[in-house]
C-alpha cells in the first residue's frame, strides 16, 4: 500500500547560483552547440544574457542530495523503478548570474494495477523555483514509478 500521508511533505528551501561553467558543461553533455550557451558575447548581444537549456534545472538535484532524496522520503524503491515523466514550466527567463531558491514537495502518491500483476506505485514531485528578486521562474514536475516486486528466481 502506498502511504498517502506523505502527500504535501515539503523540503527545506535549497539555493544555487546559475553558473556559466555548469551551463557550458551541461550544453556540451547534451550535444547542443548553440552559441547562446557557449559564447558570452553572442549571448549578451542576442539574448540579453546567457540562458539555460530547457532541462538544465535537473542540475538542481546536486544541491539537494543527500538531504532530500524523494525516494527515501516517501519509501519508494527507485532501484526497481523508473523516471516516468518530467515537465519543466519555465515561467520567466533564467540567466547565468541568477540565484535560484526552491522547495520540492510531494504533490501526489497513488498506485495502479501493473500489467503483469501487482501494484505500481506513482509519486509526483513538484519543485517551485524563484529567482533572487522573489519572482517565480519555474515549476518542475517529476513522476517516479516503482514496479511491483519481482518474483523470486528459483
Amino acid at each position, binding site marked *: 500500500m502506498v502511504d498517502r500521508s506523505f502527500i504535501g511533505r515539503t523540503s527545506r528551501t535549497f539555493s544555487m547560483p546559475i553558473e556559466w561553467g*555548469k551551463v557550458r*558543461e*551541461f550544453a*556540451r*553533455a*547534451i*550535444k*547542443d552547440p*548553440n552559441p*547562446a*550557451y557557449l559564447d558570452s558575447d553572442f549571448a549578451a548581444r*542576442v*539574448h*540579453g544574457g546567457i*540562458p*539555460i*537549456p*530547457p*532541462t538544465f534545472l*535537473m*542540475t538542481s*538535484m*546536486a544541491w539537494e*542530495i543527500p538531504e532530500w532524496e524523494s525516494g527515501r522520503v516517501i519509501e519508494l524503491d*527507485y*532501484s526497481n523503478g*523508473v*523516471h*516516468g*515523466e*518530467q*515537465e*519543466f*514550466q*519555465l*515561467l520567466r*527567463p533564467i540567466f547565468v548570474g541568477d540565484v535560484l531558491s526552491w522547495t520540492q514537495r510531494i504533490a501526489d502518491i497513488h498506485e495502479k494495477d501493473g500489467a503483469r500483476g501487482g501494484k505500481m506505485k506513482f509519486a509526483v514531485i513538484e519543485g517551485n523555483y524563484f529567482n533572487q528578486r522573489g519572482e517565480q521562474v519555474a515549476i518542475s514536475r517529476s513522476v517516479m514509478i516503482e514496479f511491483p516486486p519481482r518474483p523470486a528466481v528459483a
Partner: protein
Amino acid sequence: MAAAVGYDDVRVGDELPRVVIGPLTRQDIVQYAGAAWDFSPLHYDQPFVEAAGLPNVVVMGMFTAGMASRCVTDFAGAGQVRDYKVRFVARIYPGDTITCTGKITRKFETSGERMIEGELTVTNQKGEVAINGSFRAAVG
C-alpha cells in the same frame, strides 16, 4: 530574448527540423552523469544492470530528453521554451542513435507573448518510440 522564428512565419502543422544524434557511447553517458549529477549505477555499472536483468547500461531518460530539447531550441531560439514535458516509454542504450521530430499543433497569444505549442517524438534507429513529449515556446 531573441526568437529564431517569427510568429507569422509558422503555421499549425509545420514540422520542426529533425535532430539526429548518435550512435551514443558510454562516454556520452558518463559525461552527462557528471554534468547533471546523475550517478545511478543503472547508467554506468555493467554488473549492476546485468543483475537487474538488463543487457546494458541505460541512457538516462533526461539525457535523451536534453538532446531532444534542441529540436525546439534550434527552431524557436535558446531561452524561448516556456514548457517542456516528456514521457519515457522505452529505454535507449549505448550504440543507439536517436531522432527527434516535432510538429506545431497550436499558436496563440497569452500575457503579451506569442506562443507555439507542439508535440515531440524521440525514436531509436529501429523507429521504436523512446519519448513522447510536448512543448510551448515563445516566438517573435
